[in-house]
């Protein structure tokens, strides 16, 4: 078997080496920018006194969802995190997730729209997405280091790659699922492709796209934890530290904090994703 071994790994090594050699000055510069932005966000968030932060979060959740139970649960959960002494780590994780999600959506949603419009592009994107989604998450960590160096930017890079596929897939799906008679109707009334996108495709696909955004946020959160191995710090960093020191209790505390953040984000996003018409009918 060894006599005919194909040099897959070697080829990838050489390709990445080549890219690193010629691109790393760019990526490193990018890393600096992201590091600065992220640092600013983190400092801004941590500057808010914790009780004030929790109150603000509760208010925002109330305004967005009008869900009393969710609001109350969030307050209790966040106080528990604060009480466990994990506040700074949590804020750091939230900032990482926010920046990664923003990048993933900024790339993923337009890409999904383009794939829905051009079947040629879709043929290219689909297999890449398949690879991205089945590749073990840890593998993304390796190339992130030579490009961005150990640290938060490398973590954001691998998180973006890992969490982007649902944003693309759900956007594509949402637009492709528009009933054909509505599409035909917009054409029959002389809509341009752009008009159709703005007036028909995106409004009708919005609930599906929201579901994609939810998925992206959840994946980002899970990846941010894994990315603690390459210096993401935050709650993942706490877990990583606990593993290395075999502190089970500490590890679980950090784990519980991650679960609380995940549940709050998930429920809020689900509420936002429910189509307005249905809410109206339910009343």
């Amino acid at each position, binding site marked *: 078997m060894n006599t005919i071994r194909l040099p897959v790994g070697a080829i990838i090594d050489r390709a990445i080496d080549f890219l690193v050699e010629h691109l790393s000055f760019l990526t490193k510069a990018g890393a600096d920018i992201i590091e600065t932005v992220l640092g600013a966000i983190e400092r801004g968030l941590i500057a808010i006194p914790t009780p004030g932060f929790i109150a603000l979060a509760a208010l925002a959740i109330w305004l967005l969802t009008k869900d009393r139970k969710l609001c109350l649960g969030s307050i209790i959960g966040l106080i528990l995190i604060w009480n466990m002494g994990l506040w700074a780590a949590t804020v750091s994780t939230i900032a990482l997730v926010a920046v990664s999600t923003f990048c993933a959506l900024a790339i993923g949603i337009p890409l999904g729209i383009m794939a829905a419009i051009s079947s040629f592009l879709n043929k290219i994107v689909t297999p890449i997405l398949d690879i991205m989604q089945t590749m073990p998450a840890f593998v993304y960590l390796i190339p992130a280091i030579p490009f961005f160096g150990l640290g938060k930017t490398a973590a954001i890079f691998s998180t973006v790659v890992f969490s982007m596929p649902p944003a693309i897939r759900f956007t594509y799906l949402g637009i492709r699922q528009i*009933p054909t*008679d509505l599409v035909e109707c917009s*054409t*029959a*009334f*002389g809509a341009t492709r752009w008009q159709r996108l703005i007036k028909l495709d995106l409004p*009708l696909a919005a609930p599906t796209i929201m579901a994609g955004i939810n998925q992206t946020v959840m994946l980002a959160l899970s990846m941010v934890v894994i990315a603690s191995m390459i210096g993401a710090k935050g709650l993942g960093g706490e877990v990583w530290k606990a593993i290395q020191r075999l502190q089970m209790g500490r590890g679980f505390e950090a784990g519980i904090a991650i679960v609380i953040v995940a549940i709050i984000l998930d429920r809020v996003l689900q509420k936002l994703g429910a189509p307005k018409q249905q809410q109206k009918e339910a009343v």
Partner: protein
Amino acid sequence: MAKIQVQHLYKIFGPHPNRAMKMLKQGKSKDEIMTAIRHGVGVNNATFDVHEGETVVVMGLSGSGKSTLVRCLNRLITPTAGSILVDGQDVLTMDDSELRELRQRKMGMVFQNFALFPHRTVLENAAMGLEMQGVPVAERLRKADEALALVGLEAWGASYPNELSGGMQQRVGLARAMALSPDILLMDEAFSALDPLIRRDMQDELINLQDKMRKTIVFISHDLDEALKLGDRIILMKDGAIVQIGTPEEILTDPATDYVARFVQDVDITKVLTAESVMKRSEAVAYLRTDGPRTALRKMRKHNIAHLFVVDQNNQLVGIISADGAAALAAEGKDRLSDAICTDIKIVSSTTPAQDLFTIMADLPYPLAVTDENNRFKGVIVRGTLVAAIAERRGAA
């Protein structure tokens, strides 16, 4: 000049339309082409005109190509060959912006399943076509409101489509098309998804609107009764080809092929036949000014009838005189008919459907007079001729 002129139009579905075209020209059928090279024949050599202000119903069973044909008219489907002229402009050579212009201003379309945007209010839906034209918000909402008023839905502008019944939704669909004030309305099975009672209401409403607006309408239907009711002319299609074009009565009474004959044989012919088509054009009338009782009696004897309709010099119907009445006048030596004329008689207009005639004629002791809109005498219907005329048409169909 015709509003829409379609000539030798073909639509082949499949990757190699030319091969299918060649087979069609060799006289191969739709099914043969499907089995041989897996190509669908949507429209096969369709040629017809639609005149300004006319309602043409394209009718046929599902798969007959009628929906494909109408989608070729605004190029939702691009034909394989042939030509389509709208107001003399060739639709097939239009570029994208000319085509949008045509769709935005000249042709409004109404769809079988309404195709309303669920995330928009009724008013916003009605304004959609104008929105695509880039009409400013205030103006397009005003026009949409007028269009909604036209279909009686002005009070529903703020509702969402899913709060409306099917019939109301289709009114919105109609208003959306009308808001463009297009010359041409394309209606694709517009009423087929509605239940029968609502469908009939909508048909009546369309006829009313059409009386006011005089649009050029191309209406797709698989329902023969609907076609007969709405169509000034009917285009009957089978397997993508046109088998007959004609007025409803021509289609019924003079079917071009066995297929048409079979298609129409279940129609209740009394719905389509009018008083005019079953009446006898009688020369036997008495003239009020010139004819005396003896002349009237002679005319009755000659035509072997017991009653005679009396008309004035303008051929306007005055009344009826019986043989007994005329004989009595003659015996008294009077030479004017006026004293014995019965003026209280039943009259029908020439457009009355034949099915209504049976009830009108029940227990009528004398024949029924048929007049035109100016009360001019056109002919008579007696029970025997009514039944005979219907039996004869039915036998032919």
